[in-house]
């Protein structure tokens, strides 16, 4: 997929565990894992907002575009 999710990097920078982030954002650990592994088809603005708030970052810190060509 052309959109890369850099959630692992941000979690490591903030020294936060996935379980903790899932609890703060209000999603299941399974869904967070789907997001982290890049299997997600879409992300709601509300989820993105909650993640950015929890990790104190910008959407661009979590999501990146990589040209597949």
């Amino acid at each position, binding site marked *: 997929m052309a959109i890369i999710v850099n959630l692992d990097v941000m979690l490591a920078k903030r020294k936060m565990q996935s379980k903790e982030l899932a609890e703060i954002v209000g999603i299941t650990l399974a869904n*967070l894992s*789907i997001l982290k592994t890049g*299997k*997600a*088809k*879409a*992300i*709601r603005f509300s*989820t993105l907002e909650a993640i950015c708030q929890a990790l104190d970052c910008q959407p661009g810190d979590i999501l990146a575009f990589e040209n597949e060509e």
Partner: protein
Amino acid sequence: MKWRKLILNASSWLLDTLIGLYVIILIAFLVLLFVGKLGGNGFFSLHLNEEFKSLVDRPNIEPGPGMEGVFEVLEVEPIEHRVSLELNTIGQLGVVLPVLIYAGLYLYTIVLLSNIVRSVKANSFFIYKNVVRLRIIGIMVLLSQLVDWGSSYVKVWFFNRYLVSTDIVHVRSVFNLFPNIFSSPIIVGLLVLIIAEAFAHGLKLKEEQELTI
């Protein structure tokens, strides 16, 4: 909800009974075939074209008692001949093998339909397996029409190639260009394929919904 359950149970029971009966008939057919009790006869019907209808003896048909004033039978037209053949072993194989293949595919289609009903009963309608099942059923229904057309061509070919008739010099297969829209396998097959594609699209939407975080 009550109606839905009733329809599903009735469909499931009907299909399972049909599968059971069909398997019994198929086994009986195979047993009779191997025992040799099936007989070596084959038959097919030939449609008569316009030129030869006049050559065939016409049966006498009249209105029944009390119906004389209601209608008159104006004309009776023979349109078909039944040709019965005594076949040798190779000839029997040539007839039985396609029939067995067709019967197997027919059984497989009913099993697929039964599996779809089971999945609906289990509340797992939108699964990829059902899309594949519907696609296969659609193709099978279309194939059945092709087999029908093919067999009519084979009949004509067989007649022209292996039989000689002094009365019938020309035979042709009959195509129905305007079939009944509700019973034509072509229409039904296409409908099933369209439903399968709608399913595939629905499944994609469901998957996207599930993978939206």
